[in-house]
């Protein structure tokens, strides 16, 4: 066997091998953030196409996968921007459910938690939760009823840890809009996770 066969040729790109080695990982990364298989597939394809064009900048430095994920992050943000351009904020912009019913009470304590809807104690740590693929299914299902813009803001903030200003720029919203959206997303998601995960007898 010659030397050329033993070591992969790094001087020219090999998109077929990229697809085999990193395609599923990149798809998983994108679908967790976009929650839309078609959009995630497009983002993966766009990533490989951009990687082909930019290959000379990579030159085999560092991990190929880290490099590809770096490109994919930009493609995901481009997708969020595109949604914004296609459906700009107008009158009656929906930030998500207000869930005022959580604080409805018949007694003099209106505005405080309704005992039936109030939080209860959770017995789980992030380290345990991250390993449970069924938890992530519930997590993703709980985000789906939210308006797309609200779910995107939540993902950019709580999954990717972007700063408020960066998210406002990507989604073309004011910081006050953003805080309302994040609040509604958290109120909804917390309640949904409690009902569908933490209060389930098998958890």
């Amino acid at each position, binding site marked *: 066997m010659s030397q050329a066969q033993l070591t992969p040729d790094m001087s020219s*790109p090999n*998109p*077929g091998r*990229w*697809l085999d080695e990193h*395609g*599923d*990982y990149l*798809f*998983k990364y994108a*679908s*967790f*953030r976009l929650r839309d*298989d078609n959009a995630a*597939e497009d983002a*993966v*394809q766009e990533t*490989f*196409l951009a990687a*082909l064009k930019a290959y000379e900048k990579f030159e085999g430095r560092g*991990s190929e*996968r*880290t490099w590809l994920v770096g490109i994919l992050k930009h493609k995901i943000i481009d997708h969020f921007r595109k949604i914004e351009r296609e459906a700009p904020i107008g009158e009656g912009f929906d930030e998500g459910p207000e869930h*005022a019913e*959580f*604080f409805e009470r018949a007694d003099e*304590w*209106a*505005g*405080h*938690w309704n005992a039936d809807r*109030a*939080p209860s*104690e*959770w017995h*789980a*740590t*992030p*380290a345990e*939760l*991250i390993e449970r*693929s069924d938890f*992530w299914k519930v*997590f993703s299902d709980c985000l789906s009823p939210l308006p797309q813009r609200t779910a995107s803001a939540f993902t950019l*903030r*709580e*999954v*990717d*840890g972007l700063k*408020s200003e960066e998210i406002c720029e990507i989604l073309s919203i004011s910081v006050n809009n*953003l*805080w309302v959206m*994040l*609040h509604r997303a*958290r*109120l909804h*998601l*917390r309640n949904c*996770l*409690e009902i569908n995960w933490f209060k389930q007898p098998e958890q």
Partner: protein
Amino acid sequence: MKAYEKLKHSIRYWLLRKLPTCQQTVEKISESMDRELTLRERINLKLHIWICAWCQWYLEHLEIIRETARAKGAESPDLESVRPTLSAEARERIRRKLAGQA
């Protein structure tokens, strides 16, 4: 001791009436994760949480959600992917597209 308990109870109810409601407090709890609260907001929040276990849990839960989601988002890129995976159709489509470009 009974007198002390009674006093604590009265202070708690007096405070609950003076402070912002739970509905207003959960909004501040959320904002506290995205911006620096003013001194007044911080004091109201601390006092409310001191006397309200529900809002205290609410804050804890938002922190668990953030920590879990960020850990998931930062999973090592070298970790072997399990599911979901690219469908056979998508894989073939991308392969053809790449072959046309290479």
